[in-house]
């Protein structure tokens, strides 16, 4: 290898380190590599253990856990369609309400906001992510749900002709309230990722639109939104992942009744809520406990799929620039705070 004449005992070149002095480097290298491997092992181990613990329930309920609608622990019947439907309905409500507002916020901050307000407004939106979910639950239970109930009643009776929305009798804790709280909770992350993506729209594209005579709004509609669409979709999916798995706020606000309500102001249950609510009681009933782990497995797979799709869109959206996103709060202060 080395250029030769200047060798020292041990057959190595003068500029090569002795094996002893190379050791710390090797130790550090393999130490760090094994730490990284640890992450994969933990995820894999969890998956295996979760399937193992759900085994009893899987052989007992099989696929009717997903399609059957009858959750009755007292009679050993564990068919969780109501839980899955509840999870999906609340997440859908959260997306319908939260995503448009979050994207509008992002567009406003990056494209339309007076420059000196930009920092403060984005910090305020980020602050929504700093509120713990149990505090959202607290506020939802004692403020939001009771204050909105009259409005829900008015809405349901006025628009009684619209299926799903009207016609029923709203109860205090219901799909809609849970979904609304989820909408508020996913807002900061969807907004942060959208903001990051919108900030990557090339200045030339925007200037080209303006030069062709577009108004600011037309520029946003024709240059900014199409360019950032994949990233925004990814951000929205990431928000959906959050909404699917949110536990504490939902268990406090969804009503915890294992039935499929026939309108959005009816009470229901969600996968995460049933686990949190029943795991203590179920601890001594193996089949019940196993069914809750099964619910966890379904939730895990559901969120995993949503996240994988979200990652796909985000990586397509941000192409060259690797997004820092994902935590919502790592994006310290808007577009300027990124990775320079």
């Amino acid at each position, binding site marked *: 290898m080395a250029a030769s004449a200047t060798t020292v005992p041990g057959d190595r070149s003068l500029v090569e380190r002795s094996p002893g002095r190379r050791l710390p480097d090797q130790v550090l290298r393999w130490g760090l590599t094994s730490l990284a491997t640890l992450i994969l092992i933990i995820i894999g181990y969890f998956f295996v253990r979760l399937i193992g613990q759900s085994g009893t329930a899987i052989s007992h309920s099989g696929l009717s856990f997903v399609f059957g609608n009858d959750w009755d622990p007292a009679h050993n019947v564990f068919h969780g369609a109501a839980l899955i439907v509840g999870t999906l309905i609340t997440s859908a409500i959260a997306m319908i309400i939260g995503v448009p507002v979050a994207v509008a916020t992002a567009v406003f901050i990056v494209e339309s906001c007076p420059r000196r307000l930009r920092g403060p407004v984005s910090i305020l939106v980020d602050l929504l992510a700093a509120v713990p979910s149990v505090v959202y639950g607290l506020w939802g239970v004692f403020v939001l749900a009771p204050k909105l109930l009259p409005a829900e009643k008015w809405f349901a009776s006025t628009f009684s002709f619209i299926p799903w929305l009207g016609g029923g009798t709203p109860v205090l804790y219901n799909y809609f309230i849970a979904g609304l709280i989820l909408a508020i909770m996913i807002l900061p992350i969807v907004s942060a990722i959208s903001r990051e993506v919108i900030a990557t729209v090339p200045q030339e594209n925007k200037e080209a639109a303006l030069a062709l005579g577009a108004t600011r709004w037309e520029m946003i509609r024709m240059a900014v939104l199409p360019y950032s669409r994949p990233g925004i979709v990814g951000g929205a999916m990431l928000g959906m992942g959050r909404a699917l798995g949110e536990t504490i706020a939902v268990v406090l606000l969804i009503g915890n009744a294992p039935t499929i309500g026939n309108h959005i102001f009816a009470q229901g249950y969600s996968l995460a809520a049933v686990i949190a609510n029943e795991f203590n009681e179920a601890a001594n009933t193996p089949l019940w406990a196993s069914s809750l782990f099964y619910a966890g497995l379904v939730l895990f797979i559901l969120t995993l799929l949503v996240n994988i799709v979200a990652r796909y869109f985000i990586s397509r959206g941000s192409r060259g620039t690797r997004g820092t996103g*994902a935590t919502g709060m790592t994006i310290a202060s808007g577009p300027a705070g990124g990775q320079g």
Partner: protein
Amino acid sequence: MSAVSGLPAVSARRRRTDRVMRGLLGAATCLALVPLILIIYYLLHKGLGEWTSGGFFTTDPNGNFFGNPGGIRSAILGTLEIVGLASVISIPIGIGVALYLTEYGRDSRFANVIRYFVDVMTGVPSIMFGLFIYIVLVISHTGGSGFAGWKGSIALSLLMLPIVIRSAEVVLLLVPSSLREAALALGAPRWQVIRRVVLPTATPGLVTGSLLAIARGMGETAPLLFTVSLVFGLTGNLNAQMNTLPIQIFNDITSPRNAVVNRAWGAGLTLVALVLIFNLIARAVARRSRMA
């Protein structure tokens, strides 16, 4: 917007659409901030009274059905202990993995697999980490007890890990490679480059990311529900059930007693204040490092 002479002016209809749509964007932003303002208002309105009532920070909650329900001392200390241990676990491991990614793995296939799974981990709901530790450590009574503080710390550290890794990686990538190359050219081995050049340069950013991870872990309820459970009394024993702010709030919400519900508001205000303090310190560190 103003028409250059010779060009036709933008039609009134298009100008109106422009104004209306941008107005809507602004309105949506205001709408997004309404919940934040309301939550802060109610927390202060209902929580500040609790703070000033005697013994809120100096007594432990008691299970009495009548009289003073007690304060939140054990909950605050429990949260600090559990989050402290979680930070001690997750921050070194997280920075270690980030170092692997930036200094050794770089764009190798394995490093990209790790990156992908770390990203996936950020999307795993927090209840899953609780459930994991519940299955692995709580049911098996590892360490001689079922629910225990240190198991909560491990659940939280799993949750904080991807946050630390991702933020640390971003910061480490910002360290100019000319610095690394200069050190290597002077004959420094890789580990010295990392210890003497890369880490010191990146310290402020690493601190920011870690503080944000701590703030995130502090507010989590679901992982603790499955691992630490709840006990009212003050205990420093991490191998026993402990009290924590999120679980205490969760428990108090369902109480029929007004005094207990008020305690939840006071505790909620405390929790938000703690999370905000860590957030603000993180931002302050980030800002100072940017100026430097």
